[in-house]
């Protein structure tokens, strides 16, 4: 196995009394898309910022590209691309000027930057916006520009913190397509997200984070197989009758989860479970049968939903 680009052992981040990241271990290997999946406040962004060598670690050890972020911050950052959760483009400047200034921070020659800008604007589908001011651009365009900016120095590792939060579905899919292309081109990606579909689509491997700790680690399908049933039957009941109905559902599935708005039956055969429900004379308002997702894995491991 090739040497890991990022290695964390007992990695911890404390803010005063609060422990945001609590002794986590993980390795990111070259060429993979590695995800941190978890709800807001799970410690994903704090972990990202430590990897990006902008936030000092409180405890444990962290190696990034074979270097120590504490001692070699500038040398590590020279080889990273960072796409922060909140776009921090200079909105008064043009698309090109944003890329130029950023490239100059890396000490790149202007001719080299110009060459890179041509490629990156094509990649980000912003060629016609080269000289537009950033401020009026759409959220999706700004996010693509931030990604293009993160790629200006041809980084060995691209770090994306919640890349599609706040984007509409169409913009999300376009962005996923671009990230998928990067993955195909061999760029190592680290992605944080609280969207399970994003994690399933993009990540080769991921860790599920909750309250600063890693709850599970593996490939998306592997995690689902390990921690959930093959299928799920979702049942919705009229308001006020759910508790009573849930009691009558006992024994129909491997596991039953009662959420505020629906009951989940974990089973390997959802259609058969649905037939069993009907046979007991239970009539839900709505029934959905589906495959297990990472959302179910998270629910099984933590007893809570990813998005509250």
């Amino acid at each position, binding site marked *: 196995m090739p040497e890991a680009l990022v290695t964390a052992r007992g990695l911890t981040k404390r803010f005063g009394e609060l422990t945001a990241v609590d002794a986590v271990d993980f390795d990111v290997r070259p060429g993979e898309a590695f995800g941190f999946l978890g709800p807001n406040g799970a410690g994903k962004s704090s972990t990202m910022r430590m990897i990006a060598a902008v936030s000092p670690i409180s405890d444990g050890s962290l190696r990034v590209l074979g270097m120590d972020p504490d001692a070699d911050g*500038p*040398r590590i950052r020279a080889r990273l691309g960072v796409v922060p959760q909140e776009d*921090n483009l200079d*909105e*008064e400047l043009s698309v090109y000027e944003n890329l130029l*200034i*950023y490239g*100059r921070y890396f*000490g790149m020659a202007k001719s080299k930057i110009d060459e890179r800008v041509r490629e990156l604007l094509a990649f980000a589908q912003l060629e016609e916006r080269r000289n537009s001011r950033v401020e009026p651009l759409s959220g999706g365009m700004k996010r693509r520009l931030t990604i293009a900016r993160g790629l200006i*120095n041809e980084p060995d590792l691209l770090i994306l913190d919640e890349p599609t939060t706040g984007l509409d579905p169409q913009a999300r899919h376009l962005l996923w397509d671009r990230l998928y292309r990067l993955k195909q081109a061999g760029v190592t990606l680290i992605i944080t997200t609280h969207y399970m579909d994003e994690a399933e689509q993009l990540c080769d491997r991921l860790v599920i984070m909750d309250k600063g700790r890693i709850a599970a680690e593996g490939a998306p399908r592997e995690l689902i197989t390990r921690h959930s049933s093959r299928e799920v039957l979702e049942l919705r009941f009229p308001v006020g009758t759910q508790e009573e109905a849930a009691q009558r559902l006992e024994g129909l599935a491997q596991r039953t989860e009662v959420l505020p708005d629906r009951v989940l039956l974990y089973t390997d055969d959802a259609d058969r479970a649905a037939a069993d429900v009907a046979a007991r004379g239970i009539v839900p308002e709505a029934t959905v049968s589906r495959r297990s997702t990472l959302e179910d894995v998270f629910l099984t491991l933590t007893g809570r939903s990813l998005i509250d």
Partner: protein
Amino acid sequence: MAVPSSLRVVEAGARVYRRTWRGSVISTFLNPVLFLLAMGVGLGTLVDEGSGGADLGISYLKFLAPGLLAATAMQTGAGDASYPVMAGIKWRKTYHAALATPIGVADLTIGHLGWVGVRLVFVTVVYAVIMTLFGATSVFESLLAVPPAVLTGLAFAAVVTAYTATLKNETGLSTLFRFGIVPLFLFSGTFFPIEQLPDYLEPFAYVTPLWHGVSLCRNLALGLEFTVHPLLSVGYLGLWMAAGTWLSIRQMRKRLVL
């Protein structure tokens, strides 16, 4: 590493300015003209005809112009170190973007002050030229007053940057201008000699960095006798600048590196 990296931040400042200079061009060119017209010529005529003429020994316009140069440098330095710094930290978060690159906090802070220095040279040279056009000084003498004016501006820029980095929001900035910069502007010997102040206030004027900037600019531009040794004033301003820079790096690190 530190020197070329800060220069990249200065360069970024220049590139941003190329896009945004229109916003400050009026204050750079028009303010000195307006001030020298209203106070120097308008009010100055009254002063010169009254007892002021005898007390000052020179025309009020000559007295005022170099002092105003130092005060303008102070305002420019403080201005460029307040709202733009808040924008970099909080509103536009451009500092966070820069820190994701090889640029470090010290590079960023020194580069920011370096760019303010470039702006100060530009603003004070324009001012010196306008001052000459008004006949307040000769070209050569007015240019002599430029370096101390820039030093004054940088001393304020450094201290104000450190202060801004500690603020959660901009209300602290209006407080700074209302209770810090404006009183200094009025009472540090710009508009009248501090000997006119009540005796118990006079020592306070000597403590203010602006008074030393005014003293250097005025006496160099007019070839007058110094009441405080000029090297002492330069050293005092330099001390403010150095301490302010050190504090700025410290506060910026506290604010930006979490």
